[in-house]
């Protein structure tokens, strides 16, 4: 049983991903902000973390680096509304494995999730 953590303040996005990818062998857990995301990640050590950049409180990249501190092997997929390179660079340097640009459609999610949770 694999664990997927979605950290996003948009409940609709969390819901869609949950509906689309929740299967027998994938458990999906949610967090609505950065701090919560970090604490859940540290508790459950998820196999894959989907991390939004813009979050209330600490942003996604900060949360990522906090998670990476404790769980260096965890895989974090970032997604951001900012299209610039600088933001992407920051995301990678905080520990994101991949960064997707919003809006991300279902196919992209399928590709990424199947890639890391196969």
């Amino acid at each position, binding site marked *: 049983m694999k664990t997927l953590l979605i950290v996003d303040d948009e409940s*609709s996005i969390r819901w869609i991903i949950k509906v*689309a990818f929740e299967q027998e062998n994938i458990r999906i857990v949610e967090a609505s902000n950065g701090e919560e995301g970090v604490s859940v990640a540290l508790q459950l050590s998820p196999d894959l973390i989907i991390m939004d950049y813009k979050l209330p409180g600490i942003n996604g990249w900060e949360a990522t680096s906090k998670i990476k501190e404790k769980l260096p092997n965890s895989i974090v997929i970032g997604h951001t509304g*900012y*299209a610039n390179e*600088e933001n992407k660079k920051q995301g990678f340097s905080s520990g994101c494995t991949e960064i997707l640009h919003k*809006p991300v459609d279902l196919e992209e999610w399928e590709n990424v999730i199947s890639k890391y949770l196969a």
Partner: protein
Amino acid sequence: MISFAFNLAMVLSGFILFLLLHFSLVIIKQFNKFSVFDESIEDNPTLAFKQKLSMFLISLLPIFILDVMIRLISSTNILPLNVYPFQGLLSLAYLFSIFTLINFIFFESALTKKIMYIFAIFAVPLGFFWIKTNVLDGFFPIINNYYLVFLLKAIWIVIGVFSLIIIYNKTKKITDHEIILAYFKSTLKFLLYFLLSNIIALGTTTMLMDYYFVFSSALSFGSLFFVFVMLTTDSNEEEYFDKPYKIIKQKIVSRMMISITILIVISLELVNYATIYIIQTELRNTKSHFFVSIINEINKEFDQTYDELYASFSSYFNKYNASDQLYYIGITLFNDMRNIKDLEKVVILSKESTPLLEVTKEEVNFNYTTPENIAIYKPYTDGASKDGYRFSFNQPYNLIEITKIIKDKNNNVAYYVIGFYKSIGLFSKINQHVFNPEGEILVLNNKYEKLYSTETSESLKSELHKGSFFEVYGKNELTRLNLLVRQPEKFAFSGIQKAQYNSFFFTIVAIIVFLIIAFAYMKTIEAPIKKLQKGAKAVGEGDLSYEIIIKEKNEFYELATAFNKMVSDLKKMQQDQLKQEQILSVSRMGVALNHEINNPVATITMGAQLSNKILKNIEKDANEKTKSQLVTLEKTNEQIINESKRISKILKDIQEITNPIIEDYVDGTKMVKVKFD
């Protein structure tokens, strides 16, 4: 004591000069450090304004230094008594070097070398003047301690030589001669104005008797003219826009020169006054100084040869031939011949004792009977002792005759006329402005007994007997007579006093004139400064539409222009900033849109995609009717997905437009530049 103080002051002034040079170099170094002369800051209006303001303030500095120097010089009573013409040349040379120095300070940025070079140029003639006046002409006329004089001169010369060597070594390295030549020429132009004005002024000042006063007054009046020239020679307007920075420097220099000139004029007047004061003091201390020169003048005339005298007489007696003239003159000598017993003849001898004319007793008697001769002849002394001199006054010809009475081998008495003296000349001597006409010239014999006197006034006699007078003795080598010049103290310096009053008057007039000029000048400064102040205040309170208007094309015009440029630049900057703020808020909106809309769009897209996926699963088991409905639903979902993607693309485009702004926005710093493709 004055001479000593003078010497000391001369040496000290040398040191002061070098100190000033040193300090000016230090100041110049500071200029370079703070880039006051950096022209590249022209595009920064605030800095340019500061630069111009500080330049204006700095330009006042040499005036203060000069002022201090003048005060110092005035207080030390510096006066080279016998070097008036050199004094003038020296002043010009100094003036020239000062002008050049100022020119260089304010026109060049790499200064040190050039200043040294130009200083060397002027150190050579100055050094020449110093040597000429100090060593050859004897700079110190009245001094007792010659060792001290030589020591001081030696110190001065050694300093001069050393500085020349140092300067020479430094100037060897300078290569940029063209600039130096240019500024040499520009300075020469100023000097030319100065000299021209002096020539004009010379004509107006001849009422002052002494040529030194004429010269120095000419300098004063010339300076006035110079001020006028400086005020009216404005550079043309085109240059204002081509090289505004250079022009403002020129403006400052010229304004500074005017101020310096005013100070020079005032100081010259002060020096004049001090000169007279010192002459008077010296005279009071040495008493005989001027009287000796008068005695020398008289003695010179007594030394005239017969030939010279006869030559001058022939203009009076041109109707006679040479021997007739001698005869005629001889006759007048012997009106009292009859009073002398045993007189055989009168011999008139030349200086070399060659007999020029012999008059026998018979001839004298014959000629003497002319009644008009008796009328015109008036003996000044009743008689003369044997072996003594006799002085008589020949009234129609204004001659004083000096006759020696001698005896020949046969014990015959003869009159040897040994000299004539033109009394007009004598009286004119005591009419000099340095000597009151009330004075008296006495001719004394070996025993200092009075033989002849020019004394005419009874009142003077009483004055003389009060004992309060100056008198000087001098011996005439030809006649071996003593000359005594005496003058009541009361009148002795009336000429000098007159000159002093004149000078005092001119000083007062000059000061008043320059006070008026200074006041007017101050007013011209005050008004624009107030305008600038008002402008600065208004701008400080945030009124960026304020504009300072100065019509006169001077450095304040430049300051105002710079100020206005600064303000308009500020205004432009503010407007730019406003514009940028607007762009920034648009970009912020873009960012917000991007984020806020992206999420729901993503949800919609994903939702549609998910529902299509689910629909496809249902489709497998559905009947035909349901299938066609599901296909319709799927198509509807496709439409939703396409439309959502379109929205995403639009958002992406907006983000690309605002991309550079977002970069900075993300960093948390304020945006500075905006780039649109």
